[in-house]
């Protein structure tokens, strides 16, 4: 775009709010990003308001009404203890999103810092970090989670820590390789030339330019974190019953899959929705988190 073809926004310098609104509008034109954000917003609302929108207390058993079929009273029926499945699934959203966000926050922060420093410093710092990353990547994540749960006891925190530790080296590896492509770019040298310290160059120029692909990896890893939590809970190593999570709802329904398939299937459906939401968001961010994307992907396509 040439500098003069939008004379209108010369006259009014954009306020931060207007700029933010404009950015949001631009980003939400991407269909994947819009759908992912929409689904995720929905899940978030469900998680926040689960105690109020759940029709029954999720832990309340009712031995006179076990394994009820779907009905207007119990939309998804009841399980073998007479608990309302819909209420349990709604509450399970909380655990899944908590795991997803905590894992992303932890692994993104740690992985970004470790990868950025390793890639930017080079030399022996990079070599040692790479060796550690490779060892962690080669180590089966599930085995590690099992060991951690054995040591700390099974709890939500154990799951989060285990999954975060499994994901940090992935983020760090991606971050390092992106930093390696940014390090030789001329604007890094030009930052040094104005007298910036190495830390400042790293913080102000290297990391912001390296983040987009890493954010995409982290978003997609949120989906995997939800799966990992479900898997661990299914095995009884994650969040302990009776607290509902999608994983242990599937486990509870496992033995009833022939007679009451909706119990497992509905929880599985929720996992699929959450994973798709995060993946769409990740793909959408990959396409839009580039200031030049307006030129490259072309608005005309959407």
């Amino acid at each position, binding site marked *: 775009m040439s500098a003069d073809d939008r004379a209108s926004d010369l006259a009014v310098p954009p306020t931060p709010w207007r700029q933010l609104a404009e950015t949001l509008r631009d980003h939400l034109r991407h269909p994947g990003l819009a759908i992912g954000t929409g689904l995720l917003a929905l899940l978030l609302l469900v998680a926040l308001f689960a105690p109020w929108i759940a029709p029954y207390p999720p832990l309340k058993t009712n031995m006179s009404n076990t394994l009820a079929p779907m009905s207007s009273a119990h939309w998804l029926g009841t399980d073998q203890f007479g608990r309302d499945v819909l209420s349990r699934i709604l509450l399970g959203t909380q655990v899944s999103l908590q795991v997803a966000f905590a894992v992303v926050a932890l692994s993104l922060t740690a992985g970004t810092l470790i990868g950025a420093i390793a890639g930017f410093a080079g030399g022996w710092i990079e070599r040692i970090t790479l060796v550690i990353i490779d060892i962690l990547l080669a180590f089966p994540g599930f085995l590690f989670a099992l060991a951690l749960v054995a040591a700390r006891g099974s709890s939500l925190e154990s799951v989060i820590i285990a999954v975060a530790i499994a994901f940090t080296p992935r983020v760090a590896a991606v971050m390092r390789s992106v930093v390696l492509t940014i390090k030789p770019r001329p604007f890094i040298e030009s930052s040094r030339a104005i007298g910036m310290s190495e830390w400042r160059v790293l913080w102000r120029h290297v990391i912001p330019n390296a983040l987009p692909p890493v954010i995409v990896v982290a978003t997609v890893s949120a989906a995997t974190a939800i799966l990992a939590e479900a898997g661990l809970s299914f095995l009884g190593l994650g969040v302990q019953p009776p607290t509902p999570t999608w994983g242990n709802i599937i486990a509870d329904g496992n033995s009833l899959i022939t007679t009451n398939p909706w119990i497992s299937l509905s929880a599985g459906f929720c996992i699929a929705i959450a994973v798709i939401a995060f993946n769409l968001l990740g793909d959408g961010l990959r396409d839009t988190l580039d*200031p030049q994307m307006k030129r490259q992907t072309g608005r005309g396509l959407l």
Partner: protein
Amino acid sequence: MTGNEQPPAPDEPLLSVANVSKIFSGGRSLLGRQRSAVRAVDGVSLELRAGETLGLVGETGSGKSTLGRLVLRLVEPTSGRITFAGEDLTAKSMAEVRRLRGSIQMVFQDPYGSLDPRMSVGALIAEPMIVHGAPRADIPRRVSEIMGLVGLDARLAHRYPHQFSGGQRQRIGIARAMALSPKLLVLDEPVSALDVSIQAQILNLLRDIQQRTGMAYLFIAHDLAVVRHVSNRVAVMYLGRIVETGPRDKLYGAPRHPYTISLLSAVPLASPALERTRSRIPVYGEISSGTAVPSGCRFHPRCFRARLVAGAGKVPTVASGDGIIPAVCAQQDPKLEGPTSEHLSACHFGPEHDGRIATLQPAGERA
């Protein structure tokens, strides 16, 4: 930023580079074999006074860009001394060098790559001031002032680099370098990536800025016409060495080194009549690699004068490559010396030997 430095004595050069070398050692390969080292800059000395423009010309691979980076210590010199405004840059700690970079700034060749794509133009121009601790309150005013100075509309400060054209981006690069009012600007091929019409605008802008601020320029380029337009003095580099240096008019009017003569003969003339009458002087082959610097005079494999002198047959000769050259050219490294202390060239033989130049085959007709 520059207030706490001693003003240099009137006679003292602002920048003095003394016998500086940079050897990029190849390190060791996987099997422990020593990789060959590249002698990018090899014993270069030059001086630059306040307000002066020194043009540095040479082919790709002559080490001119490395020399520019050595001046800012973006590249660590292997040996030699660089003195700026009376302070020995080579002896300083990195923190002190960073502080001094406030007074030595650089404009880069690539106007597309040298600006962080994620920062607005205003932030890019403000950055050097923030780094060097200018009072925050002054910065916005100073940013619009500098943008005006380089011919950019200050209302565009919130735009991002990709929204500008190449010439405008180079103006942003210049604005960024000027933000701290440096005393020396290293211009590394500032117009090579631009259209010819834009080149003239940028060169005129640089001239105006120099007239207004008295900044000294170290102007690195491969385009002899551009260098002639902007420089007071010119230094010609070949394979990490300065082979000829002198005041602009002397160097362009009466070049002494065969390399300079060949380069100048390759510049097209504006008049077709003149262009037809003059003879193109051959340069044989291509610039050697910095990993295998030729013995003796490093220009001897490509030199027409060496062939002429050898052909005249009054000196001992040796065979070299595809020609016969004087033995001294292949054995002895010529010193940079000349008739006056201003105009120096590094050649064993003077331009008086070039009389029979027309007898040589033009380089273009050799395969």
